[in-house]
């Protein structure tokens, strides 16, 4: 009752994630690493290939459009 169970209004989203990972410090660190790798994988595999053609960095041809 005295402590707030899931959010106590003192931190941002990253420490929120950290506190909600199970296990001790090492397990949390390992899980964080897995999360980071998963996010990077999703970005490289899906998000960036999708975003790249929308950005004007890599058009190499001449055309009349």
């Amino acid at each position, binding site marked *: 009752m005295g402590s707030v169970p899931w959010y106590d*209004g003192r931190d*941002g989203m990253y420490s929120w994630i950290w506190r909600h990972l199970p296990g001790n410090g090492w397990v949390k660190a390992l899980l964080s690493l897995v999360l980071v790798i998963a996010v990077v994988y999703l*970005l*490289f595999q899906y998000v*960036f290939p999708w975003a790249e053609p929308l950005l004007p960095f890599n058009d190499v*041809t*001449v*055309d009349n459009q």
Partner: protein
Amino acid sequence: MRSSVKGRGNVAATTDDTEQHDDGPAAPPPAARRRMGPVVAAVSVFGELLITAGLVLGLFVVYSLWWTNVVADRAADQQADKVRDSWAQGPGGDGDGPVSFDSKDGIGFLHAPTMSGDEILVEKGTSMKVLNDGVAGYYTDPVKATLPTSGKKGNFSLAAHRDGHGAKFHGIHKIEKGDPIVFETKDTWYVYEVYGILPETSKYNVQVLSPVPKESGKEKAGHYITLTTCTPVYTSKYRYVVWGELVRTEKVDDDRTPPEELR
């Protein structure tokens, strides 16, 4: 839920503090529990979002300039091996028979020793899907390229990436007038000499692909080659164009001895 919890913090204590009065004295929060008001919490989350955005943009740079090269070089190597294999397996270059075009597998290799030491596989088309495999593509649109293997006069126009996706034309600015560009097919080396360079032109300038590229100073039909890519480096604002003209052709011998320009 979030806001009601925050509402019990010090800043907004007046809104919802009855509960706090009840159990506050009985169970005082630990000293470390410094609570934020809604404004501070919002700023904090906003800051973390900015950090996240910065990391994502940084990763995008890594992706564009490094990872796409890894993927593209892998794809290009595989396809190049396939082409080399099919050349090796095919009937020996005994006659002037029509060169087999596997439009999907690539038609030959481009060598531009002053630009890069690598051979660049040439495939059909200049769509991103083709070029992202780390190859050079010959134009089919808006101006159709004339392939040197056809023997006809015209312009063999090519495009490739300047950065990322193999960055095959990254060093295009190193090419100078008089430099050789060699196109290798199964049976023949086509040796071109660079005679014209346009360091910056509009991306709508399709005239550079014409069978007789007037902008390069040529008036008569001939066997030309045109390399296009984007410029300045890391952007796509303009196009960089290099023109060459066929000097001679050389038969490929059994050892595939390269012409002297490549030695």
